[in-house]
């Protein structure tokens, strides 16, 4: 199967129903996307598929075939941070950090659709992403900061 992952053509010899999450992690070596629950409850596995935030534990490889996939590694790098990542660093959101790849991918997709989200919209959209360490207040603040950064850019 062929995918475009972070702008590169990648191939994987996997069964149709292997979730994209495990194709990324175990076949393509992209470990930034995390396994948390496997049943669409936590959002740790969130990636963008053709620009839309998707729980990669729920998307069969066969359905993702041919699509354009962005993972946390493709959103920005330590040298060239995406505005959302910049905001996450500034606000020092992460504690254990395990949920944060998913949080960042979800927030980036939100800001794509709604460049100036209200607290209420942030709450609704981000509530699918669990954080066991309780970083929610900082996530909220960081989303607002990222929104400003994107608008100024």
């Amino acid at each position: 199967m062929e995918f475009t992952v972070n702008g590169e053509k990648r191939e994987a010899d996997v069964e149709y129903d292997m979730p994209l999450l495990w194709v990324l992690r175990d076949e393509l070596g992209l470990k930034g996307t995390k396994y948390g629950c496997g049943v669409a409850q936590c959002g740790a596995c969130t990636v963008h598929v053709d620009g839309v935030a998707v729980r990669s534990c729920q998307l069969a490889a066969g359905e993702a075939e041919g699509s354009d996939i962005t993972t946390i590694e493709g959103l920005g790098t330590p040298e060239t941070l995406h505005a959302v990542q910049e905001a996450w660093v500034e606000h020092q959101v992460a504690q254990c950090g395990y949920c944060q790849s998913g949080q960042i991918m979800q927030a980036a997709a939100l800001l794509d659709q709604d460049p100036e989200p209200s607290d209420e919209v942030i709450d609704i959209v981000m509530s699918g992403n669990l954080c066991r360490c309780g970083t929610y207040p900082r996530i909220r603040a960081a989303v607002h900061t990222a929104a400003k950064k994107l608008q100024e850019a």
Partner: protein
Amino acid sequence: MGRLRTIGRRSFLIGSAAVMGGVAFGTYMVQAPHDNPLAKDLAEGSATFNPWVLISPEKITLIAPHADKGQGVSSAQAALIAEELDVEFGQFEVSFGKPDPAYWNHAMSEEGLPFKSTDDRWAVERARATMGGALKVMGMQGTGGSTAMADSFHKLREAGAAARETLKLAASNRTGVPVSELKTANAAVQLPDGTEIKYTELAGEAAQIEPVRFVKLRDPSEWRLIGKPMQRLDILGKSTGTLDYGIDVEIEGMVHATICVNPRQGGVMKGYKENGAREMRGVIDIVEITNGVAVVADNTWRAFQAINAIECDWGDAPYPHEQADHWTAIEDSFVEAQLDDEWRNDGDVDAASGEEITAEYRSPYVAHAPMEPLNAIVQVTDARVDIWTGHQMPIILEQQIAALTEHDVENVHFHNQWIGGSFGHRLELDYIKQAAEIANQMRGTPVKMTYTREEDFAHDFPRHIAMGRASGKVADGKVVSMSLDIAAPSVLGSQMSRVGITVPGADAQIPAGSWNNPYALANFRMRSYRAPELAPVSSWRAVGAPGAGFFFDSFLDELIHAAGADPMEERLRLINHKPSRKVLEEVAALSNWGSEMGENQGRGVAFIESFGAPVAEVIEVTQSDAGIKIDKAFVVADVGTVVDPINFENLVMGGAIFGMGHAMNCEITYSDGMAEQSNYHAHEAMRMYQCPEIVIKGLENGHKIRGMGEPTVPPAAPALGNAIFAATGQRIREMPFHKHIDFV
């Protein structure tokens, strides 16, 4: 009853510690430093001054031995060394180091002792020191009990200072300039004429001289780093998906495995049917392990698929199969024969006169469920064992695995990794043993074992269940007496039995967060009863205090309301420990306590001291037709010294959210011997839309530094319950609250 027996048990605990620490090993052992593990394979031209600082011609490495499970302790430990060493962030690397007795945790002993943390009498401090000595001799390296900062605060600054002075001595030897005229900054020694010699350039010479041992620490007024906001060292990696957790580590030639063990914990596997699992794509092998079976495959998901196909025949659990019977066992434990200790008996609760109130409280089993499902990589060869995972008790880990694979412990090598949350689960060893059992059956091949989230829930050792029976009296608008009996299985007993250690004496965690609260009630009695072992349980963030503290503070609130007093004023009237009083006063000011509230609104306050830190929380809620909404929370905590205000705020908020979320909607219940909750949908805790604005403040009046990983958890549940009562008139005496009221 009681008194004599009580005293006997307490002195036994201290006595046994004294034997271990003072007599059997001699005081010399306690005072002598452990060997420096960094000296063992020191490269040519490199210098090490103590177990925490290593300088080579290329770089400076600081060792941060406390496991980092998200609490930011890696950065905080480095900052303490850097403060005295005069190196800046960016000028050094941080390593978790290797397990070694030199990294014994001297603060970990405190919570095992039957003294209030607010008690600083000489004899008590002496007992703490003795227990610490025992742990040192045993080389108890560990992270837990919110002790990392208490353990590190002096030790690591001293390590930095000693290294700095040794480097100055080396520079003095080279240049002939007396040490007193040398300064240090930015990882270099500065000569009076302004020239600088980098520490890395001095490494070779410094290695030749005996390290300076005793150096006076700088006055807090001179601190550059401590107390100022820091940029955590892991923040970039954690914001870009580039930091590898244990689950992300790859070892050459590695295979992927997962397991299924009897969800009736401790029960045997009577047999299993493979059901074609072996023929499934990617499956390499299916092997038996203790009480279960493992699949080894070429991809994690393929291993998950195969394990789901296998059908196992499970034996019975060694505990009651139904939850109701667990509760019955607790109810039946309020008897003289099961009295564990009497922690407080001031005045005479029976003789006090006034209107009597009684109540019964319950606290459920709760899962740890950190976001990173448990996992471990183990490679066993005939010569050695290597383990890559995150764990909080590295030395015990190496010993246990050595016993399992029958290697000498020197040949077992643990490589600690970044941890995606623990909340106590990574004090347990089962997941590593299971990985080792698989790897031992395929020697040579590194095996990465990953739990499915369902296995993580099924095989958790949850927080223990507990019940509180309370009575008290009120008269003339005041609380005049309070008595609280708490029954629970011993969490320390259960946990330590799995590593073959028997803990003597009463379990201080059963009543933690209740008897130790510094209230001067004239008539005040606290007793703990030890229930039989039920489901295996383990330390959960703040251990005993989330349950016992909930009973204590909620019931105190009941009494205050019955007396017709103000919840804040009456607590302030009763509290008799200065830093604790300050905490309450501050939270009253911060929350504007007493100001008008809207219709259907209510606010509640709770105060609990745990792990030595007094914490007060005020929560405001609104009741609507749809349920309770948490509007705002205020948290004030005294930690003695705030090392990093940003990390402090993170931990305080995280703890309060953890406490509220689990009080709202989390419990583990057993049916047919198995946990009924299998994933986050059934054990959700707090999500973003429920998370209130949280205002926090840190105080520094306490005379010792305290960790903040746990102490803000316990007051959250009673503050929330007390707020719900204020808003609705409904008193909730059982967690999770959603069994009695809806949340929006």
